[in-house]
């Protein structure tokens, strides 16, 4: 039972490796998912705090893409100087819980927790994010869609740390958008949300990456819709958002809304996200 605050990655990885026989070590970052999951009872184990590991925090340009460190908070994202393709991720960051939650909660924590309602996932999927997993055994990279494997399930092995997320090169002029539908203004879990990244040419969609969250066990890219949107202007694009093109979703009924409502809300949220991006560009 100890609280580990390594400052080097090696030390952090060492703490996780070869623990199979001992009591498991729990990784903690912002703690905003960890504590609610733990409940009121005192924790009885070892905690590995990854927030002070050198190089784990912050967003930086690497090569042709971007790197989001594994302990980067939502507030860090909000304050980072990023191209318009990240606008969706920034909008999501603004809507994660509250300022308090954004100051502590991390992007990596959000994807590791793998809630179907994780607000970070749709914008990250639309950015084609990749997840870097590091252990004493080595480093591997997975695309985000392969990393999150189900409701609260990921491909992370017990000895791995999410050291970073990578966003591959973005086409010039790519713009992001995000729409969250929830029951109140702040501190609210999404009923449904949409993250999108578009590139436009002459007011028409050249490429579209549209992701819907909270309407399936894991947020999903809407491939059929993305293809159908190519070449559309705003009016056409709105029309092309049809339930048939969203058939991959499987919305459920729960306390936050009925399946039917979710289905409709998704259509509307996609339309609003498209409008947000396309009008935003028109107005420069």
């Amino acid at each position, binding site marked *: *039972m100890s*609280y580990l605050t390594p400052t080097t990655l090696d030390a952090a990885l060492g703490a996780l490796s070869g623990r199979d026989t001992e009591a498991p070590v729990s990784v903690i970052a912002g703690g905003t998912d960890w504590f609610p999951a733990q409940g009121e009872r005192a924790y009885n184990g070892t905690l590995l705090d990854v927030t002070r590991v050198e190089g784990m925090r912050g967003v930086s340009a690497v090569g042709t893409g971007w790197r989001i460190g594994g302990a980067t908070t939502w507030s860090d994202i909000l304050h980072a100087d990023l191209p318009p393709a990240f606008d969706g991720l920034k909008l999501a960051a603004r809507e994660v819980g509250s300022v308090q939650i954004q100051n502590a909660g991390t992007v990596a924590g959000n994807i590791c927790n793998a809630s179907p309602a994780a607000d970070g996932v749709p914008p990250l999927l639309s950015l084609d994010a990749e997840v870097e997993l590091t252990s004493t055994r080595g480093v591997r990279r997975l695309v985000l869609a392969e990393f999150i494997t189900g409701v609260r399930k990921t491909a992370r092995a017990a000895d791995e740390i999410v050291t970073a997320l990578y966003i591959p090169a973005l086409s010039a002029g790519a713009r992001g958008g995000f729409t969250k539908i929830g029951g109140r203004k*702040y501190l609210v879990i999404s009923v449904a949300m949409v993250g999108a990244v578009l590139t436009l040419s002459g007011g028409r969609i050249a490429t579209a990456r549209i992701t819907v969250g909270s309407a399936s066990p894991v947020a999903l890219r809407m491939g059929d819709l993305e293809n159908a949107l190519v070449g559309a202007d705003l009016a056409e694009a709105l029309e092309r958002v049809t339930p048939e093109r969203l058939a991959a979703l499987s919305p459920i009924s729960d306390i936050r809304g009925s399946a039917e409502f979710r289905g409709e809300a998704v259509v509307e949220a996609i339309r609003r996200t498209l409008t947000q991006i396309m009008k935003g560009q028109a107005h420069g």
Partner: protein
Amino acid sequence: MDKAAATHLTGFTLNNAPVQVEARVGERLSQALRDRLGAKDVKIGCNAGDCGACTVLVDGAPVCACLMPVQQAAGRSVETLAGLAKADPDALRLKESFQHHQAAQCGICTPGMMVSAVALLRAVPEPDVAQVQDALGGVLCRCTGYRKIIDAVVGAHAADTLQESTQELGAPARRFDGLAKVEGRDLFGDDVAPDGALVVRVIRSPYPHARFTFGDLGSFEARPDVVAVLTATDVKGLNAFGVIPGFIDQPVFAVDTVLFRGEAVACVVGEADAMLAFDPADFPVIWEPLDALMTVPEALQGGAPLVHADRPGNIMCGGFVACGDADAALAGADVVVDGFYETSFVEHAYIEPEAGWAEVVDGRLHVQACTQATGMDRETLAQVLGMDRADIRILPTAVGGGFGSKIDVSVQPFLALAALKTGKPVRMCYTRVESMQSTTKRHPARIDIRVGAKADGTLTGLTFHGDFNTGSYASWGPTVANRVPVHASGPYFIRNYRAQSRAVHTHCPPSGAFRGFGVPQSAIAQETAFDVLADKLGMDPLEFRLKNALHDGQPTVCGQVFEQGVGIQACLEALKPAYDQAKQACATFNAENADVKRGVGIAGGWYGCGNTSLPNPSTIKAGLRADGTLVLHQGAMDIGQGSNTVIVQIFARAFGVPVADITVLGADTDITPDAGKTSASRQTFVSGNAARLAGQALRAQVLQQANASDTAEITLNGGHLHVVDADLAHAVDLSRLEADAEGYVLKAVETYDPPIAPLDENGQGIPYAQFGYAAHLCVAEIDLKLGRITPVSFTAAHDVGRAINPLLVEGQVQGGIAQGLGMALMEEFIPGRTENLHDYLIPTIGDVPPIETLILEIEDAHGPYGAKGLGEHVLIPTAPAIFNAVYDATKVRLMHAPATPARVRAALKEAGYV
């Protein structure tokens, strides 16, 4: 060396001073601050990030201290309100501004609000409203409706220019207990237990209905981490509590069957650390789940099992009021509207969970906890413990919100039993989940209503049937059943009326008192049916209401005739300018927007102050000591509504000295006479009258000493009492008078009990000595595609008879509207599913629009200086005003609260919207 070593000893700076704590691995920063460093200004409302009460600054950034391991703070700077309030320039400004705007009511959210605001002001010295909302969006407040908080933060930069009001009756005086709240010094239920007190944990049923047996309690009690176990066999008196004679039916500990999820079957007492590690699943109890009745239709079905064997048909009780011939009137009406309405369980969601501590002192039991009703707590404990009332002292703490639920006991019997059994100080604080599972709720209602009118718009008849899900035990269910039929007409003149209510048992948590006792539910049905009726008549809804508004001299549906003081017409008329303006603005908006529409809705309301046709006394005591100290024994619980201020303002006026001359004591059952419970909008009216009488009586004694006339002026100056009568000054030498056992040379104890008369079998009689009146106007925007309703503004007209403190009136109105808004749009407690503040949504600072309060003063003959009660009136018209705005915008009638986007969208589609 790497820091990858066990770090049990953690050092950081707390409010600029270095501190070290030896904490558990992963101990919450909030716990370390409160329990190890004494920072009780860090409040705990949920332990889950949902309420923000625990907000502190870590290296300047606001975070939830409940979600940060204390070890993560190592080497960093932690700031809390108590530290900031001493010298931080932004906090000093906020302190002034919060008090000036009365941004703190109960004060439990205030540390979180102010700490968040400090962070904002450091970055943005003069923020706008939207910036304040974004910065404070993570802190919930259940009392204020947020607008005063926004005003206080927006205005903080100009705090040194604020003029402090005088304190006399009628002035917008600052709350007299406000400074402690904005400095983080106010102490609530979980802030007062002595270090080392044992902790009491409750073992609760995970099932709504189950039989159970205990395993080997003896060997469990012998565990080293367990000091004592309590079960029903430890209850030496009556194993039952309740609030209404004849309905004392809820066991402290269930004996062999539980009737709701969260019901207590036992307590475990142990050292604090042991109890934090304790897993309730280890407790030896074997459950046998049984079928549960969770809804009224299930409970009413023929052959349904009985929740209580002696309550046939699962009907606990009912209420009935009738006058004239309602059926004939409806048959003869030109236009009739009917409808079936449904509302949901609403959780009080005060930010302070139930908490307190108890100990035995010289054979007497002391219980200090948050409560709305000290006298009733003492009575309940006397009965449960089989003790003499005189041997029990109830010493309330500051109360972090109550709204009705803290009238019933919660932690008190457990604490009392544990203190008596162990002989040691014991403490407990409900977790948020426990609080939500086990304490009372607003009754879900199922209402059928029919209203008829003549072609000219005159109301002719109304019938009402309401079934209320009263849950597993009685609590205040009988009060709801009685109140609703008296109020279901609204404040209108209706001569043919029949209203019936039933309180129906289910295996849900007990429904009890919640601001309005069932009237907010009935008002939704009645006030929205009125708009449909007006529409069918081709009349404007405001004109329709004005035409039918009750006037002085007209009988209510109970046959009660007020010769004065009926204020509904004045309230409705006061809305007229805002109404006309809003109508125009909405028309313009709607012409320009296709997918969002705006509408204007109006609703009226009334509410009888005090108990329904039952005695309802308050007693207030005051005395003068030989040294000239004027002491007021004030036992009316201030749960944020302001009785610590209002009662003193009234007493000061009655006695005839400034507020500053008065020393206030209480509440404490050892020294304050019973001022009754803080409920039924009765404290300003009933305790206020007792304070007025006590002030007048004591004044009369002083004047008699000086042989002075009624109009004489009394001054208290450094222990000298002077009476100036027609320019003649008399010094009254108090020291020559003999002091009584309490040290008073002059003393007055006065009781006020409102004049009422019983209701007959048709509900005819005098249920209340006074009613207060209200009308709300809401402009709401409806998103046709997403079904989302967004209130844009409220104008609230309230007839309060006499505003003893207009600032407190506004605070009540705004806070009430926020609760009405929550009930209308988002709040739905579902046992087993929304038992936390993550899934149970209450309005945040971004959800409550600007509110304009119009205060009307139609004096009441019985009220102190004409004042009427207000605490519950404030949310009665809110939900129907919102629904009527939606009807105005869309012609869609909402009949299910809360009108969540999914429900609204379904209703829109049914009405043909695509």
